[in-house]
């Protein structure tokens, strides 16, 4: 039986090809609440449930295009149908930090007319010796981009869980406030199983018919 969730969010993970996006995703999804198993590769990657409040679960559909970064039109096509994204750079690779602006610009261009909520992720924080970007500097950039910032490490499993939950919570709040809406031709947010919806709408129609007599 499929687990019940109130919303499904589609998320993307973007950033240079060597920053460790797949590792991050893998850490987040391995062995935990995964309900999609891929027979071809035999690796669970693609979905996870997150409990946002007691009893309220959100299904995250995660898009990983690792290995396809250079097929520009393919990665771009994922933007439009995503509600959130992890913008990842490698703390030990200055260039991946400098490329953030390009990634963001591209995302903005291809997400129209919708919008994406981003979280800035400084990855590989376990490699202290090799660090090329300071926390202060990254936080400043995050502020300028209007995003939250978090530092993670898939190796030491530092903040992996937290980064996805932080982003999910952020999106959830915006959905609750009505800043983000479910739309028919958009895959970014879908509402989950809510029992009895069909019946209630039928019932709502009936009383009106009786009135004129």
């Amino acid at each position, binding site marked *: 039986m499929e687990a019940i969730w109130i919303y499904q969010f589609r998320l993307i993970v973007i950033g240079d090809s*060597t920053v460790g996006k*797949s590792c991050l995703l*893998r850490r987040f999804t391995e062995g935990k609440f995964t309900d999609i198993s891929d027979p071809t590769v035999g690796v669970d990657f693609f979905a996870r449930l997150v409990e946002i409040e007691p009893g309220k679960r959100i299904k995250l559909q995660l898009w990983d295009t*690792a290995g396809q970064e250079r097929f520009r039109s393919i990665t771009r096509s994922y933007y439009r149908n995503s509600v959130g994204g992890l913008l990842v750079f490698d703390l030990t690779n200055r260039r991946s930090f400098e490329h953030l602006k390009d990634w963001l610009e591209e995302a903005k261009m291809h997400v129209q007319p919708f919008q994406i909520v981003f979280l800035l992720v400084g990855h590989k924080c376990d490699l202290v010796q090799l660090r090329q970007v300071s926390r202060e500097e990254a936080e400043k950039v995050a502020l300028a981009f209007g995003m939250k910032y978090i530092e993670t490490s898939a190796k030491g499993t530092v903040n992996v869980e937290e980064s996805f939950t932080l982003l999910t919570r952020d999106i959830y709040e915006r959905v609750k406030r009505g800043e983000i809406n479910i739309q028919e031709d958009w895959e970014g947010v879908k509402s989950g199983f809510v029992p009895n919806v069909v019946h209630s709408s039928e019932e709502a129609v009936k009383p009106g018919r009786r009135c004129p007599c």
Partner: protein
Amino acid sequence: MKFAWAAKMSSVQDWGEEVEDGAIYNVTLKRVQIQQAANKGARWLGVENDRLPPGHTVSQLETCKIRSIRAGTQQRLAETLLTAFADNDLTYTSIFLYTYRTFASTETVLKLLFARYERVGDSEGASDSRGNVRNALASVLRAWLDQCPEDFQEPPSYPSLRRVLEFLQRALPGSEPLRKAQTLLEQLQAQHSAELEAEGGFHGNTPFCLGEEEEVEIELQEDFLSFEADLVAEQLTYMDSALFKKVIPHQCLGSIWSQRDRKQRKKQAAPTIRATVTQFNAVTACVVSTVLHRRRLRPHQRARVIQGWIDIAQECRIRKNFSSLRAIISALQSNPLYRLKKAWACVHKDSIQTFEELSDIFSDHNNHLTSRELLMREGTSKFASLESCAKELQKRTHKRLQLQKDMGAMQGTIPYLGTFLTDLTMLDTALPDLVEGGLINFEKRRREFEVIAQIKLLQSACNSYCLTPDPAFLRWFKSQPQYSEEERY
């Protein structure tokens, strides 16, 4: 069917592990009728040895012990090349040859193999054993020269190939592997000097290049709509198949393509893959630029161009060219074109239906199950199997397919390489390089090879295409402007 039968008849039994110094083996016992059930990789390669004619059944059950190395040191893995066949690990040589670059260099492997040969001679002295090793080594080298000639592309002195030659001349004079090695050296040298002559040489990172002899002056202002859809599809397929055949499968491996190894990052890794990607992006750019073209194009004019590309996409589908098909579809789905609501409103509804059907092929549902299944089904079939709902299109498609069959023109298959690259990246991420005791995890390489084998099989199927270049179109294609991001809006 055949596989199902084989699997049913053989019962596999895990016999446990054998641990030796520097190596761990998985041992399985199989009750087999005639032959063992080939694993997925071998199946794709067609390695299974069904020598018996169909209908000729020998109901003889045999128990066969399969000893396959799961992890080992560089040395043990290299030396296993010489013993795997006797251990019934029949695909080991192929798996090793297509994946070893992730843990050893060509030079190292050769050194280890030759050292092993010398050691047998020194210590055991038994001519019989030395003969066995020599034969095993000869067949490994033959497979190597056949399957991965690019490994020996080390101009200008070709040290690895010279080492092989030197060994063969000494140990196996006049043998077939020796002739092969000599031929290969001549080929590589000729190729190299040709490249030096051609200005700048081949960088591998350029999209398809025209041959030098085709210096025909052509009016460049050719209109896109003046090209027939099937001509365009054929020419795209011509370019794609040439590039796909050149793809060196091991460059697709996650650790090589994603440049996980920091030391490798400086070099332009995986040139054959880059060339394919560049071509893909050029097709996408071409779709975008022809549709946007002049700023004042009217919606119905744009609609005609869009329809034109949908026709071309369908023609790519008939030719089983999933690479350009995907490039066109993803371009039409991209935001700069997708947002042209007025133009799309003018596109004929049959075309829209075709577009939707073709888009469905690449739906990401269930990890791209549709496109994977399609590739499995049609990968090596002679023709595409098409079922379309759009009436008009159905007629045309059938006519085209019939024409192909009448002419005996078989179709190859060109996959969208990205799916394989993602699979291999994921495998690389999910499985560790080293296991207990720092041994190289060869099980990981076996899994990767299952993907590599699919690529190889499709590459060989690709030889079925029979296509001729059309200089006018190729020149037009090359002259297409690549819009910058901003200009697309």
